[in-house]
């Protein structure tokens, strides 16, 4: 379990996160939603150990500040929102970087094929020999995900669940690849790992998340299951725009329909 307890982050004088409490259980996909500037990415960076914070964050009961980098790397993998790459690495080489310090959990013999398997999972078969810099933004994002998957390929290692921290994993993907990637995330959770993902698409959130955290102004505005959280009033208040939340007849899950702000809905 990843637990954040009363976590606050300041950048300069500005308070970005103000006393956030948060929990991500293994076996679940936890979505973080909220408007721009609400503190989603800062929360993710605090969970990844990238920014200094007050309060306490633990992973499997261990304070993340006390973890050695390689210990943390064996417990969680992080997909950043933007990943710059210096030097002309091939796609294969980038994915293989995922094996730098973590523990994939597969045998040494299998590990040699792991980059190819990871690329196949993100629908990039045959891209191994291409240069990373020559790919489109969406393709690059999937290469990065393949790299992240290599790091903790087995969702559970020696009985300990592991975590994927994904900052907007589908932001530049087409609909087909959004679904492929979200399916990977859900499968990871179903096999016993934990997933924390920042998402902008509320319908993908409704479809895939077991648990939703709504961030607003640096605090948690609400948390719970999608049907508990994705309500007309809360969404309107948080996103400050008209939204209509309906229920899908088949699964009974919510769906969100954006409305024009300037004109009244037809």
């Amino acid at each position, binding site marked *: 379990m990843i637990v954040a307890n009363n976590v606050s982050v300041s950048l300069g004088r500005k308070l970005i996160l103000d006393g956030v409490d948060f929990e991500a259980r293994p076996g679940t996909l936890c979505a973080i939603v909220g408007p721009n500037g609400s503190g989603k990415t800062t929360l993710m960076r605090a969970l990844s150990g990238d920014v200094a914070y007050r309060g306490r964050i633990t992973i499997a009961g261990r304070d993340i500040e006390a973890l050695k980098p390689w210990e943390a790397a*064996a417990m969680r993998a992080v997909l950043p929102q933007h990943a710059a790459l*210096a030097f002309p690495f091939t796609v294969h080489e980038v994915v293989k970087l995922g094996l730098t310090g973590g523990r994939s959990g597969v045998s040494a013999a299998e590990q040699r094929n792991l980059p190819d398997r990871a690329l196949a999972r993100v629908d990039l078969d045959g891209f191994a*020999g291409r240069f990373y810099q020559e790919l489109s933004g969406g393709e690059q994002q999937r290469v990065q995900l393949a790299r992240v998957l290599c790091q903790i390929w087995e969702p559970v290692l020696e009985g300990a669940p592991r975590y994927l921290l994904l900052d907007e994993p589908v932001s530049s993907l087409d609909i087909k690849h959004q679904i492929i990637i979200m399916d990977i995330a859900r499968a990871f959770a179903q096999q016993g790992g934990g997933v924390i993902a920042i998402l902008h698409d509320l319908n993908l959130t409704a479809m895939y998340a077991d648990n939703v955290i709504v961030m607003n102004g640096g605090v948690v505005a609400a948390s719970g299951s999608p049907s508990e959280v994705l309500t007309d009033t809360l969404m309107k208040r948080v996103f400050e725009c008209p939204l209509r939340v309906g229920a899908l007849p088949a699964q009974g899950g919510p769906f969100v329909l954006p409305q024009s702000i300037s004109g009244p809905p037809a």
Partner: protein
Amino acid sequence: MVSDTHSISGSVMRGRSHGDRSPIARLVILLLALGVVVTAALSLTAGAADASAYAVLRHWVFGGSAAGPLSLRDQVIIQDIRLPRILMGILVGSGLAISGAVLQGLFRNPLADPGLVGVSAGAGLGAVSIIVLGGTSLAPVVAVLGIYALPLFAFIGSLIVTLILYRVATRQGRTSIATMLLAGIALSALAMALTGVLVFVADDRQLRDLTFWQLGSLAGATWPKVAASSPIILLGIVAAPFMARGLNALALGEATAAHLGVPVQRLKHVTIVMVSAVVGACVAISGGIGFVGIVVPHLLRLFIGPDNRYLLPASALLGAIMLMAADAVSRTIVAPAELPIGIVTAAVGAPFFLWILLRRRGVIDL
């Protein structure tokens, strides 16, 4: 996956399409290692004088009596002129090239070169301090450290510049290319200004040492110099491969490297100290030989890719070959006189640098 029993050429072919360039890289390293041996052997026989390296080798192996008479002149030429120079060429060439590659990995930028960003100038300032003040205010230091005073002070000079450079150019794990190059210019200018002050107070004899040394040359190669610098440079060359995986991860940025399990802060500290020590040692014995640190890694990246596990050893080998070759040119082209090697490397390196700039203009635009 295909097993390793395939022939080398087979695996090279396979490597291309699979994006795994390590088979090619291993082959290139093997060839470069052979190249070092061949170049060293050729350098031993090349020179202004017609000394027979073969006769000297025979003399070493079989002793004086069995091998027949050996002229002292030939023995001195091979043993005291060419051999220390070749060793120094190998040390300095591999040291500068590997430092360049490591520095580029650290700054995540192919333009970082010890000469361009002021590290060499800092080392020069340290070395000049010893040359000029070694007899007066720094005399106690020289008395204690002996032949190691020069490389040690060069190391301190380059360390200070590298630390300042890193502090100025890197903010929150992101290195600004423009800031790095501009800070490098400023730090070079500062180091040279301070060097200028020392040059001003230097006496005539020291001045001669200085001008000779500032041009960059292996001509001053002697066994004591090889002995003084080789532990530092060899230590750096041996240490570098241990940084390779971390430097690879650093290509994705500091934060991602940390997520991948790399102890980033420690890696940065170790690389900065290593680069400073190696550049310091190189500059202390050979002066300002430029462009090796930028040309060699860049050339290799074109063939074997940027993976530091292969790039670092390959850079050391190619650096050694290039400097030995450049030195052979400098020794023979205007024989019986000699062209400073810094001129040879700059004549080849500067146009190459411009070519990189042209190719990568989009990346460098500020």
